[in-house]
């Protein structure tokens, strides 16, 4: 049974980063640097968001001999979800610079 707990402040930060330009596909490491999360926090979050249907994924074919790269963007449901987020939660989702280490 899948639990639909309310998203954490970190998850909301990721959702808002993706919602800034919803049509654009994003790389995982871009999100790591933009949201100041550790990879160990980001990927489980992306998995959960994809499981909930808020995130769609795609593969960018490897260029030359490089391996393919995973891409992420919000689904329509994800965009609606972000749009419906209360402003207070959205404000809280932006990590304070002093607390970034604790949240990452």
């Amino acid at each position, binding site marked *: 049974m899948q639990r639909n707990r309310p998203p954490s402040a970190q998850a909301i930060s990721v959702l808002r980063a993706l919602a800034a330009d919803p049509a654009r596909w994003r790389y995982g*490491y871009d999100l790591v640097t933009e949201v100041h999360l550790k*990879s160990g926090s980001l*990927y*489980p979050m*992306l998995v959960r968001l994809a499981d909930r249907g808020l995130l769609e994924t795609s593969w960018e074919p490897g260029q030359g001999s*490089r*391996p393919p790269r*995973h891409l992420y963007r919000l689904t329509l449901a994800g965009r609606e979800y972000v749009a419906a987020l209360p402003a207070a939660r959205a404000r809280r989702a932006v990590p304070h610079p002093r607390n970034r280490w604790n949240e990452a």
Partner: protein
Amino acid sequence: MLIVMMCLAGSVVALILRSARAVPAGPAARDDVPERLLRWAAGLLSAQRAEWGQAMLGELDHIDGRGPRWRFAAGCAGAALLLPPWGRAAGAVWAMAATAAGAAGVYAAVAVRYRLDAGGWILAAIALVFLVSFTLAAATLLRRPGIALPGCWAACSSP
């Protein structure tokens, strides 16, 4: 004793090198330690989550710099070990790690209770290295049930 320690350390290195080959490297794989670590961890993911392991590996290939690569790989390896649903291998790794930690705890309790001398602490260090090696070796073998299970069966059924 030094020889035993060197043998154990060599076994651990050999296991890491061997297990790193379990998930095939990409054509442009750098094959450095962070990538080997992440490949090992990605191999523990359940089939349902295997795609995410490839995603992590693909992303690692685009990260430059020793520090960032280590941080990214270590974080992803931790996530791969914790990401539900656990594959059988990941579950077994955690069970064995818990067993090894329990054994180390018992040894530490005995050492404190009976106030071991220097020789006792050296033995404790050897036991710790042995436990870590045991966990790594078992983790590697568990990913190869075709090899590990007949061996375990033969060991259990032998008189």
